[in-house]
């Protein structure tokens, strides 16, 4: 991978980590509801995957983390406004962090019901194939979601119609408190691709080069009209399901800190001489400043009118 791209992935990963930590503190202060599912540990993979796509390739994201949004440059203050009930957000107070949307930046939202979005990305693939050939629709999801019937229906449909879709599973081993070993009949979710006659690839979520590579391959396959692919990122969930989740159910919680892909990337960047310790420190400071600016900008926005409860339902009005 080119150095500048690697540095950019690191910067965005760091920004995501700082942003989410700040979000959790804002939640403790009562400014936003504590509804973020921290993506700590998964930022690098998310950002590297998206780096493999064109800027206008639509992305539907999973519920864990905001790396997807940061990768595409969605406004941080807008995301905060969505959660704080202020104007200037992306979804007018309707969806919080779970339904952040920015179609101009290719961020196409999320289903509230887990696994409910596979069918939507499939449909978007149908539209892309007919109206914007060459465009690819990428759908991120977790290991838990891959046990929904909708996952299987969508992959079958995408495969038989050869739709330009990429299904990226971030398997961090946990669906809330339930480990994959108890919920999922196969060890590698990518193996499910055999059931649909499509390629299934496993990749290490701590290796940004590998992640970018497999996503690019899948995108090229889709652009050639050969159909969908299933990618499984072996991912690390550093924190609990929600920010203050004590994770009593998780025996490996303590070891997680040592497996942080962002830490590994940081070490790699310093050891390869790409950036110095000081430069990394100042980069972190810059991220923190950027996040603070976003917080200030959000708090300067007026609160949404309660009447917004009735808006944005039908195009034709009541």
């Amino acid at each position, binding site marked *: 991978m080119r150095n500048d791209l690697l540095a950019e992935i690191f910067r965005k990963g760091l920004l995501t980590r700082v942003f989410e930590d700040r979000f959790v503190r804002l939640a403790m202060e009562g400014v936003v509801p504590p509804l973020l599912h921290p993506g700590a540990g998964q930022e690098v993979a998310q950002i590297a995957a998206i780096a493999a796509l064109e800027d206008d390739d639509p992305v539907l994201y999973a519920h864990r983390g905001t790396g997807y949004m940061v990768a595409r440059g969605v406004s941080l203050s807008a995301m905060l406004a969505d959660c704080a009930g202020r104007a200037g957000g992306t979804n007018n107070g309707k969806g919080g962090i779970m339904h952040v949307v920015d*179609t101009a930046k290719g961020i196409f939202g999320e289903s509230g019901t887990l696994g409910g979005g596979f069918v939507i990305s499939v449909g978007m693939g*149908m*539209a892309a194939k007919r109206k914007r050939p060459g465009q690819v629709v990428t759908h991120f999801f977790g290991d838990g979601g891959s046990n929904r019937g909708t996952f299987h229906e969508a992959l079958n449909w995408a495969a038989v119609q050869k739709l330009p879709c990429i299904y990226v599973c971030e398997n961090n081993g946990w669906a809330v408190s339930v480990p994959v070993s108890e919920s999922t009949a196969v060890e590698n979710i990518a193996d499910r691709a055999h059931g649909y006659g499509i390629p299934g690839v496993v990749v290490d979520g701590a290796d940004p080069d590998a992640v970018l590579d497999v996503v690019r391959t899948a995108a090229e396959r889709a652009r050639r009209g050969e159909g969908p692919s299933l990618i499984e990122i072996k991912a690390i969930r550093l924190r609990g399901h929600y920010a203050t989740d004590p994770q009593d159910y998780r025996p490996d919680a303590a070891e997680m800190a040592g497996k942080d892909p962002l830490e590994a990337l940081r070490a790699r960047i310093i050891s390869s001489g790409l950036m110095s310790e000081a430069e990394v420190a100042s980069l972190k400071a810059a991220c923190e400043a950027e996040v603070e600016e976003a917080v200030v900008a959000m708090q300067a926005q007026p609160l949404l009118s309660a009447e917004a409860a009735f808006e944005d339902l039908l195009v034709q009005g009541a």
Partner: protein
Amino acid sequence: MREITYSKALNEALDESLAEDEDVIVYGCDVGRWGGIFNITTGLQAKYGADRVFDSPISENVLVGAGVGAAVGGLRPVVELQFADFLLTAGDEVFFKAGMWRFMHGGAFTVPLVVRLPSGATGAGPEHSTCPEAYVMHSPGLLCCVPSTPADAKGLLKLAIRSDDPVMFFEHRRLYQTRGPIDDAAPVAPFGKAAVRREGRHVTIVAWQMMLNRALKAAEILAAEGLDVEVIDPRTLAPFDFETILASVKKTGACLVVEEGYRRLGVGAEIGARLFEEALPYLDRPFRRLAIPDVPIGSAPALVSRILPSEEQIVAAVREMAG
């Protein structure tokens, strides 16, 4: 003015919509090569190609959900679920995805999706017999059509396809073969406009589709006894034209709703509640509903007949009300 069947009217609506707008696609189980198990999509694949009219696997969730996604992506999909009962099989996709995808994302998306839902009891068993439009009327974010005539079947389906909002389109299977007049030059009344199918002054009846036909036949019998019933066909349940019903009940003081859905919390319950809220001083008789009495619909014909509101029941109900 010409006469066509209800099913031909639907076929024409799809044909014309496919011709008028390249973004319209039609899919579902058996709709492509075979022209649909109820013949509604006959000839369309041959005319518009398999890219626009095609068959799908048995995956109701994707059928509807992909429709939402395709609509978000700029197409205007018309999806057929083979039986209206499958509305609930694809519950997340209908009520949450189609109904709320736009709202959840603060209006960033439009979902110009139509889901066609053949309804009505034909003895095919409890999961293949219902008229479940009440669930749709109950749920925000969805429009709901219940056309009773071939003219409305065609007109409302075309309007539904042009609408930028998701529409659940209930076509009644037992009306497919009925014939009716259609005036190609006449404009179609919009969603949210009921049709007064018969004027009267003693009792207001609200009914649609097969129940409408039974109500009109009952009206003929009652007219001979000097009882003139006013029969109103709502045409769409969301948006719902309550004003026409209110004006009628102000005249008659008596309202009977005849529906093919389950009685408890059905469409009739909503109408009754609103009359209670808005028409109290004009009410001169207890409100009544005829509906399926809160049991599933068995398959043996005698069981079906026992629980569907009949013409005789309608006549008896009106006589009792007007007496």
